[in-house]
């Protein structure tokens, strides 16, 4: 804990593919042997805008999946929605472009040593790293069910090939344009009460992560969530991405989501204190 990812490297990676899929881009980078160090949950920090850019900070993206092939070597896939100027720049990069990346960063989802019933919950494009995670869990013999939610169908990320790595997939949209009408958190309560799941892995907006943490509180269900907090460096030196976390000793510390996260134990995050400063330091 509290150490930078020991495998973190600063490299130039070539874009091998950049495909627009609906409202997002699926971008594949050649990263060589670094694939061996990338775990589901880890993220990357990318320099955007080129040498003369006025954007001076890296942009963080969760690794969607990594793979190794004879023709391309180690590759990494990111799912990027062109929202801000940085992600728009990245989505506009053509195949063959070199991009300055620091990876892998942060903590990874904990993988159980024996088979468990796992529920993967993704909000919006936050579902991207869950498909890579699902493959790893399936390989360990886990039962993997997935719930994806978003405000509308265009914000659901659910690739065809990803569906093969889960036992079941249910989609919820708040406007009913895809799957069932409603929020992704609604069925979780029932699943917990039925003791149908052992672990929840989640990735998405902070409000969703908080809601799941409240549902799993005082139950035996473990909740591993990948948090989102604005960060300037991604490598632990700027102290901007902190979250209030309760330690084993009951003390609250402001921990960096880039070093002690993004994957955190949802029960330790003091969600009610996010955006505040704890009253007193003992």
């Amino acid at each position: 804990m509290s150490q930078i990812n020991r495998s973190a490297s600063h490299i130039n990676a070539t874009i091998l593919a950049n495909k627009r899929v609906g409202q997002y881009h699926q971008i594949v980078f050649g990263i060589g042997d670094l694939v061996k160090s990338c775990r589901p949950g880890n993220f990357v920090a990318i320099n955007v805008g080129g040498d003369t850019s006025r954007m001076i900070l890296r942009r963080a993206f969760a690794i969607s999946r990594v793979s190794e092939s004879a023709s391309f070597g180690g590759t990494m896939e990111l799912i990027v929605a062109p929202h801000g100027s940085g992600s728009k720049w990245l989505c506009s990069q053509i195949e063959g472009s070199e991009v300055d990346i620091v990876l892998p960063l942060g903590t990874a989802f904990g993988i159980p040593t024996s088979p468990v019933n796992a529920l993967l919950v993704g909000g919006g494009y936050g579902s991207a790293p869950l498909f890579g995670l699902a493959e790893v869990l399936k390989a360990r013999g886990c039962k993997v069910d997935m719930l994806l939610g978003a405000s509308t169908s265009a914000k659901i990320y659910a690739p065809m090939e990803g569906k093969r790595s889960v036992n079941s997939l249910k989609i919820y949209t708040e406007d009913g344009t895809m799957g069932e009408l409603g929020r992704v958190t609604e069925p979780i309560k029932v699943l917990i009460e039925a003791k149908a799941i052992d672990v929840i892995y989640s990735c998405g907006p902070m409000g969703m992560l908080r809601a799941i943490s409240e549902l799993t509180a005082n139950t035996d269900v473990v909740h591993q969530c990948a948090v989102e907090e604005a960060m300037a460096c991604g490598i632990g030196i700027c102290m901007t991405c902190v979250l209030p976390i309760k330690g084993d000793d009951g003390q609250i510390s402001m921990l960096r989501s880039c070093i002690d996260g993004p994957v955190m134990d949802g029960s330790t995050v003091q969600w009610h204190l996010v955006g505040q400063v704890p009253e007193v330091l003992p």
Partner: protein
Amino acid sequence: MSEFDFSTTLGNAFFNTPIFTASGCASSGKELAQFFPLKDIGAVVTKSVMNKPRYGRPTPRMAETPSGMLNSIGLQGPGIEAFLANDIPWLVEQNSRIIISIAGETIEEYATLARKIRSVSGISAIEVNISCPNVENRGLVFACDPDASRRVIDGVRKTIGGELPIIAKLSPDVTNLPEIAKGVVESGADALALINTVLGMVINLETMRPHLGGKTGGLSGPAIRPVAVRAIYQVHAALPEVPILGMGGVSSGRDALELILAGASGVSIGTASFGNPHAAVEIQSELRDLLIAKGFSSLKSAIGFAHREVGL
């Protein structure tokens, strides 16, 4: 080429190279050590530490701005006891040169910190940060008040005695920077760190309220480099004998050279490390090549060169 002398001094402290980290932009060095050996740069300037552990300011703590960023960390840290127990021994093991940066809420707190640091071995200098803009009460920015600045430095000087060089970190957000600089030098500062961040604000157009949890923040990055060059030039003109550790938006060797020509004896790399973890070592190598290309035989011969009359 091999005779080029890249070394520098700040007070009686000697450094092999003039490139340092900037306080608050390298934590205590552990993370950057993943990317390069810390002993390869002049020194690590650690994040300003206070007497007690501190949570800092609420999030959001960051806003990117054109060629810069605002930060509003508020001196989050473990407190001096934990810092001296954990961070310093590790840095010493790395054979890194170390400058400890301290910050206090009161004049007495600075003296207390100085007393706790006095007997620690392996320290090259102490930076007295009297200019952090992210404190609850702007009245506590000592560096905006000539009298308070003097009293802080005086208290630290009296406590640590004569050996350890004191570097006073000043704010550019003042009307007469050379006057404040003269005051702290008279009170016992051996060197000056110029500049801390510039106070700024961003309003979020979605909420139509200040974006940062702490409302205001410190502006850093290339956007403030001309402010740093001006501040260093002004202070070097007024106090040519006082070494300056320059900082403010340096992200390349040419930027570092600009600060040195203005009068800096060393250059700290801050925000550039956020965008490029190798920034300090890359800038160091570019600066060395640039000085040699310009015909300087040493770093020292370039310090304050911009003040010399044309033709000399």
